[in-house]
């Protein structure tokens, strides 16, 4: 089976360590998305899995065998590049066939395979075209086709959607997800876009500074972020974070005691308190803070309100119809289950 296992994977360039021991198990057929800001090591991890770069330490296992010392072609993987890497001088068909050059299949078998892939990707009519006669989305599909034709154990995608415009990106996102449901291969997908990560992944791997911050299904990383970084990175607009503290076993946000108790935390410990803009209730009877609207961003179905308060800036999601006016003072409440608490020094979530 095509499990992918990373064991204490490290990478350094000279003295600069960019990956500090990555541990991850990807199950057969799983769609895993690596997400993080640029320079977090997500692309490096992918290139190490592909074999385009050598690991400085640790093991990579694909389907139960250690592939560290295998050439990329022997690792049973295929990769889709950010700039697609399709050859401009070859027709679509030749581009797809290039992935089969070293395969031992007979000519009719190869031809059948190309036709199959073209059919799945809805490109049968485009096979004789040159890449410069294709749209961005079609080129993207050629790149996927070239990877698919190899029928690899693991697909690697390196930010494949970032060169497309917003509308096409949404469309390709769906297509890739559908494709995964259909062919069922293991996919490792790298992106810096948290929306892509949330919408496509079975499990998200959030990275920062060469460390994994959290691994889990989209729901889980959204509902129970492991630390402040994850809390703010996942979800748009970002989670509101304020300073708080513990007084007499009560969690205090300014002068307000929140409906939470943290018996195991010492009194006087500084805390960070986070609530997502969606989870703040306007005009609550039992408010946790008050703020004055300083800016509105109407988005149609909803309006984003930027408030100034004694605790600092606050972002709130308000309904699209009849939102509060700029200058209005509003009360905001939150349910206990939607309030996230973090250690102020380490940034780790407190449960």
């Amino acid at each position, binding site marked *: 089976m095509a499990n992918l296992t990373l064991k204490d994977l490290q990478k350094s360039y000279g003295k600069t360590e960019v990956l500090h021991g990555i541990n991850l198990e990807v199950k057969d057929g799983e769609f895993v998305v690596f997400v993080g800001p640029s320079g977090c090591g997500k692309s490096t991890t992918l290139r190490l899995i592909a074999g385009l770069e050598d690991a400085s330490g640790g093991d990579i296992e694909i389907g139960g065998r250690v592939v560290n010392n295998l050439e990329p072609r022997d690792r049973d*993987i295929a990769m889709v590049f*950010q700039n697609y*890497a399709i050859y401009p*001088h070859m027709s679509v068909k030749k581009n797809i066939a*290039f992935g089969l050059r070293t395969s031992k299949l007979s000519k009719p078998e190869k031809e059948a395979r190309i036709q199959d892939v073209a059919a799945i990707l809805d490109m049968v009519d485009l096979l004789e075209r040159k890449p410069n006669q294709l749209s961005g989305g079609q080129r993207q599909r050629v790149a996927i086709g070239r990877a698919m034709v190899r029928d690899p154990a693991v697909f690697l995608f390196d930010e494949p959607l970032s060169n497309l415009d917003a509308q096409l990106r949404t469309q390709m996102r769906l297509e890739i997800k559908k494709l995964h449901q259909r062919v069922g291969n293991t996919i490792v997908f790298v992106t810096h876009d948290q929306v892509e990560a949330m919408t496509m992944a079975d499990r998200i791997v959030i990275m920062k500074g060469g460390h994994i911050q959290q691994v889990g299904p989209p729901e889980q990383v959204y509902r129970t972020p492991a630390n402040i970084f994850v809390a703010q990175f996942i979800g748009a607009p970002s989670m509101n974070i304020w300073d708080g503290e513990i007084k007499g076993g009560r969690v205090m946000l300014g002068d307000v005691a929140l409906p939470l108790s943290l018996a195991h935390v010492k009194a006087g410990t500084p805390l960070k308190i986070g609530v997502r803009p969606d989870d703040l209730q306007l005009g609550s009877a039992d408010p946790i803070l008050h703020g004055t609207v300083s800016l509105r961003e109407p988005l149609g179905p909803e309006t984003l309100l930027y408030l100034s308060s004694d605790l600092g800036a606050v972002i709130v999601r308000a309904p699209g119809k009849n939102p509060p006016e700029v200058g209005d003072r509003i009360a905001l409440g939150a349910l206990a289950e939607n309030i996230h608490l973090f250690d102020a020094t380490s940034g780790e979530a407190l449960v």
Partner: protein
Amino acid sequence: MNLRNTLTIRQKHILWAWGFLAIPVLFYVVIRFYPTGNAIVLSFQNWNLLSARTWAGADNYVKLWHDEVFWKVFKNTFVYLLLGTPFSLVISFLIAFHLDRVRFMHGFIRMMYFLPFMTSAVAMAWVWRWFYQPVPVGIFNNILATFGIPQINFLNSTTNALPAVLAPAIWAGLGFQVIIFMAGLRAIPTSYYEAARIDGVSGFTILTQITIPLLKPTIIFITVFSSIGFLRIFDHVFNMTTNNPGGPLNATKPLVLMIYDTAFNGFDMGYAAAQTVVLFTILLCVSLLQLYLLRDR
């Protein structure tokens, strides 16, 4: 209403464009087009620089057609082209391809290859001429003698002279072609090679299926550029065979040297002009043919 306000923006742009273009256009007309036209007219006239120009009709061309030396020279010119262009192309590509991978003293090595291009052709020709001398002066014959191989008569043999003159001409142009090839190689995205590595194709396949096709614009440029260079070869030949320019027995004489001879030794300007027109036509045809053969299909 004055002129400035009556013109549309587009008309103003055109006016400005032609204003700026006027100087180069004038320059080209005086320096390029007028002499070219004049040379074509002259090819139908007789003129020895001193007397008046008299009409000769097609006499100069008829004379050229029956001139044995012209056909010999015509052949030489194409030998320079057909040997020089492919050799320089292959050698410069091989150097560029490997130099591209060298990290050690990359800049210095590249500079060393470029150095001959900046050196005076006259000086180079004389140094090479010296290399070609018999033992004990010439380095090549000295090397041959060390291994007990018979001496080779480079510049005084009708068969060896042309390649011997061509070699330094190829060598001199390499630096430039290597630089252009390296720029072409650098312009190929690395992801193409990474994708090929994942597909697991051989180095030979990568070279023939990816690198060379993607270098096509570079190859076209260098082919046309070096072809024109070899068709117009002059200074190397002239300086390596000064005692008897183009010799021995016209074995190394290219068209440009014949034109020079006819014009400034024979003072037959009309005849020289006719040869020039022929050279011009050849250059035009060869360049167009190459562009046609190497076009995007």
